[in-house]
């Protein structure tokens, strides 16, 4: 420093000396009358400097101009193009509540909480806000939210349900107390189609945002928003002072416009350059767009928290996330909380840090009051009110296989960019209650098998025992539940729709149906017929095929029912030969099988590889009286702006005769009552149930396909790399099926399989298959297509052939009338 000070002194001395040197030079002496120049520059130097500066200014102007133009273009492209990418959302099927509905089994209270309904204490008869409920031992009052939908909209309804043992006994609508038969609980969010960014957003227009929400946001984030031009020097200065006092960042100086610019265009880094760019862009935005547009964009962009791995953006989505309601319905206190968490949504999360959130909300309310936006009374009431946030409902993990199915189906019509950015609403057929039950049943069943048969267990996730469960409504084809594997996180391969596995005996009903069918000629068999279960040899292109039964035994002449109930391979193979492989293929295709079927004799024993989905459809055709449904996983696709884009209609086609379907179903009822599927009954299930077990060679694939009049459910168990399970399908697949169906439909199945008028009943002798006269020592009721009942008659004296003229006949009505 001392030397530096010495240098300065010397320079000063030199400067002082300069005028003396100039005076000594006669050529440089100033001319009389001119001003002395202090610094010694000549005009030409000045001109040079000016030219350089001008050039620099020009270059700077060009560069900055280009930069400005670039920024301006960026701003325009974003604001005037599609401002937001909004992920399309998948919604479950709505739940219909009605007297007799088992609300306890459904878990109504939990379902309300998942949908963002909040409990509101209060005396009976007091006002209940939309989206709230009151729960007591035998009474539930719910103010159901409106359900927006272009063609199936539901209004908000304030209802009271009287419960008895968890079952809804009565539903009345307030305020008049009118009894209603059924109300809809709106669908639940199942998942979304995200692009690169997992963001959820529910766009709102400024008209849909209540004034007090705008006031709250402006009060705390930018009180002079209406008057500044994008940057607010006073705010900057105030922030600087506050931060200096605090010794750190205590207050931001950014306006709403600057925050919007930062979120829309820039990185969050705190550098001078970035701040400068932000300021310039804010000015550009303000110069181009009005305050309403800027505010609306801000309110839809702002980050406001996380739901699991998904970011919540915008006040629309945040309103649902925090309060289970639309932004338009927020109260002052709720609006203040939304505004409060803008500063730091994670640190101020009302779910995790309620105290901090409450404190910050109080600050917002205080600011609103100071700025004249709310009066003292409102301030006091809002400050005193509890936070009242809804529970966080993360999208269910169990539905991810189903979402993948939709993701594969929808792009056939809507491309990825539309699904990931246009905010479509996809109303699916998924029944979340059934989905949860299906996931639990499958997972539990596989784990139980591994416990009971340790050889099935594997530590390698790729080699674990796997399964699939798919449930469908046969009348409509709606896919109600789909679980494509035991753990989506470990394997996203969907074994219900993407896998093709041999079906084994699950295919046999198609053979029997083909044999029972009367289309194009008399049926090959009736339910009174007998099949031949004796050694069979069939010449094929690859050699002689000799089918065997599971127990390696042959049973000789057996009734049709016994053959299928015990799943006799040889009888089925012989029947397949009798019917002809072409007719078997045709029948399978009519029922709904779409995979290519090999036209080989072993087809009758299920050597074709099929997906559980198409098997479900084929069995649904049987359950639906021969009418083939159209499987679908969604009902509607709606664009919030354009309306309904796609609507699936209830549709089914007559595939096979109702009589054929009924007879086949009757055979499969016997499988469950007495045959290989009798474990279903042993596990306590009652009522109309039909089904078929299926086991492939070496027990590599274990199937059970079972159906009631209202539900078809397919269960498959096996390894992805086929290997023997050493367990029967009865042991492996049936318990999973029963646990699922019992959970969703109860132990006593309602209804009956509809018997068409073309099917008649007759008593027959089970030993001979003849009609049983009154004196026949044995009888059993059997079903027949009209005109196909046996003509032979069993009496106590034996069987009388139809063409036997000697044997006495029983006198019937026509005998009495004298007609014969």
């Amino acid at each position: 420093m001392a030397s530096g000070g010495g240098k300065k002194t010397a320079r000063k001395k030199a400067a002082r000396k300069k005028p003396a040197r100039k005076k000594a030079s006669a050529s440089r002496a100033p001319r009389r009358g001119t001003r002395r120049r202090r610094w010694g520059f000549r005009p030409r130097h000045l001109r040079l400097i000016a030219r350089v500066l001008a050039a620099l200014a020009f270059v700077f102007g060009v560069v900055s101009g280009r930069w400005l133009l670039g920024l301006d273009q960026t701003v325009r492209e974003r604001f005037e193009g599609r401002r937001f990418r909004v992920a399309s959302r998948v919604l479950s099927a709505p739940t219909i509540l009605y007297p007799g509905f088992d609300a306890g089994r459904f878990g109504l209270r939990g379902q309300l909480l998942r949908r963002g309904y909040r409990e509101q204490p209060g005396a009976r008869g007091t006002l209940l806000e939309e989206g709230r409920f009151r729960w007591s031992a035998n009474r539930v009052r719910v103010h159901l939210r409106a359900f927006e939908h272009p063609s199936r909209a539901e209004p908000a309804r304030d209802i009271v349900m009287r419960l008895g043992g968890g079952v809804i006994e009565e539903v009345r609508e307030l305020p008049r107390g009118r009894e209603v038969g059924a109300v809809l609980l709106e669908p639940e969010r199942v998942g979304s189609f995200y692009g690169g960014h997992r963001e959820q957003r529910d766009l709102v227009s400024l008209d849909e945002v209540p004034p007090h929400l705008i006031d709250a946001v402006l009060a705390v984030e930018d009180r002079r928003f209406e008057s500044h031009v994008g940057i607010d020097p006073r705010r900057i200065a105030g922030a600087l002072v506050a931060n200096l006092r605090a010794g750190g960042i205590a207050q931001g100086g950014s306006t709403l416009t600057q925050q919007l610019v930062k979120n829309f265009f820039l990185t969050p880094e705190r550098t001078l350059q970035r701040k400068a760019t932000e300021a310039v862009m804010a000015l550009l935005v303000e110069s181009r767009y009005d305050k309403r547009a800027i505010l609306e964009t801000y309110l839809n962009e702002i980050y406001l928290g996380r739901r699991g791995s998904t970011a919540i953006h915008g006040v629309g989505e945040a309103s649902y996330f925090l309060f289970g309601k639309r932004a338009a319905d927020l109260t002052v206190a709720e609006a203040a909380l939304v505004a409060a968490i803008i500063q730091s949504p994670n640190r101020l999360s009302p779910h995790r840090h309620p105290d901090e959130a409450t404190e910050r909300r109080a600050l917002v309310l205080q600011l609103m009051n100071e700025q004249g936006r709310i009066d003292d009374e409102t301030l006091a009431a809002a400050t005193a009110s509890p936070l009242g946030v809804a529970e966080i409902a993360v999208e269910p993990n169990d539905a991810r296989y189903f979402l993948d199915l939709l993701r594969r189906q929808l792009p056939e019509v809507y491309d990825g960019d539309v699904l990931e950015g246009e905010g479509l609403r996809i109303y699916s057929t998924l029944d979340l209650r059934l989905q949860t039950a299906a996931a639990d049943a499958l997972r539990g069943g596989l784990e139980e098998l591994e416990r009971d048969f340790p050889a099935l267990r594997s530590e390698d996730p790729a080699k674990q025992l796997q399964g699939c469960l798919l449930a469908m409504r046969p009348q409509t084809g709606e896919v109600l539940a789909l679980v494509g594997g035991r753990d989506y996180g470990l394997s996203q391969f969907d074994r219900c729709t993407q896998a093709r596995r041999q079906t084994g005996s699950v295919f046999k009903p198609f053979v029997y149906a083909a044999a029972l069918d009367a289309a194009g000629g008399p049926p090959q068999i009736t339910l009174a017929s007998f099949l031949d279960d004796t050694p069979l040899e069939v010449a094929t292109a690859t050699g002689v095929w000799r089918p065997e039964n599971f127990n390696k035994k042959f049973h000789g002449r057996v009734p049709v029912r016994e053959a299928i109930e015990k799943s006799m391979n040889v009888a089925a193979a012989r029947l397949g030969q009798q019917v002809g492989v072409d007719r078997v293929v045709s029948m399978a295709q009519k029922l709904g099988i779409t995979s290519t079927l090999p036209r080989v004799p072993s087809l009758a024993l299920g050597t074709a590889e099929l997906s559980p989905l198409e098997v479900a459809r084929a069995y649904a055709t049987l359950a639906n009286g021969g009418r083939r449904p159209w499987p679908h996983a969604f009902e509607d696709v709606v664009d919030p702006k354009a309306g309904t884009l796609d609507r699936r209609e209830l549709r089914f086609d007559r595939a096979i005769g109702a009589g054929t379907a009924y007879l086949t179903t009757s055979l499969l009822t016997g499988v469950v009552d007495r045959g290989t599927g009798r474990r279903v009954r042993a596990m306590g299930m009652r009522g109309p149930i039909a089904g078929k077990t299926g086991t492939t060679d070496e027990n590599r694939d274990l199937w059970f396909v079972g159906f009631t009049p209202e539900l078809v459910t397919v269960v498959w168990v096996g390894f992805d790399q086929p290997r023997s399970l050493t367990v029967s399908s009865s042991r492996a697949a049936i318990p999973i099926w029963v646990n699922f169906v019992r959970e969703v439909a109860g132990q006593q199945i309602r209804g009956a399989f509809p018997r068409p008028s073309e099917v008649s009943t007759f008593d027959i002798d089970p030993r001979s298959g003849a009609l049983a006269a009154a004196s026949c020592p044995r009888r059993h009721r059997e079903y027949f297509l009209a005109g196909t009942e046996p003509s032979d008659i069993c009496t106590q004296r034996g069987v009388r052939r139809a063409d036997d003229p000697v044997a006495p006949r029983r006198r019937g009505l026509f005998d009495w009338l004298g007609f014969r």
Partner: protein
Amino acid sequence: MWHFQTRRHLRLGGAFVLLAAVACGSVPRGGGREAVRLPELLGDGDPARRASQRLLIEGLEADARGDSPRAKGRYERAVQVDPMNPYAYLVFARHEIDRRRPAQAQAFLDQARALFDTGGGVPPNVEAHLLGLQGASAALQGQRSRAAPDLRQAADLSPAVWGDAYLAAQELL
């Protein structure tokens, strides 16, 4: 011989008299049978059936107002609650006739009839609707020779409703 023939004839005659008496009792006289209206059925069946019927009524009310999408939504919910409700398919068939989709209407009618059969047969006050809708479906498909007898029979059974060969939504309410 004469004795035997007399007894045979007497038996035949008695049988015919009996049959005629039964037939007279079942043939509608004068104005025909009152066709079913869904509100009459609200007390029947299990809870799912009753809820399904209520949803059908709401749908019919929407159809009567001209709100076809809402009506259809209600019918679909009715099927979801009780897929075995034959009235749901009957109402659906009527709706499809209105929309001039006879093939779909026929499929729904098949379903309805099969479900009625399983419940003990088609109730007499429903038969008129099934026949009439069947006839209307055939007429829409240009099959006049098939349509006419069904429509005539429906009108005979329920002239107040089927006299004009059309079933309006409010006629089921």
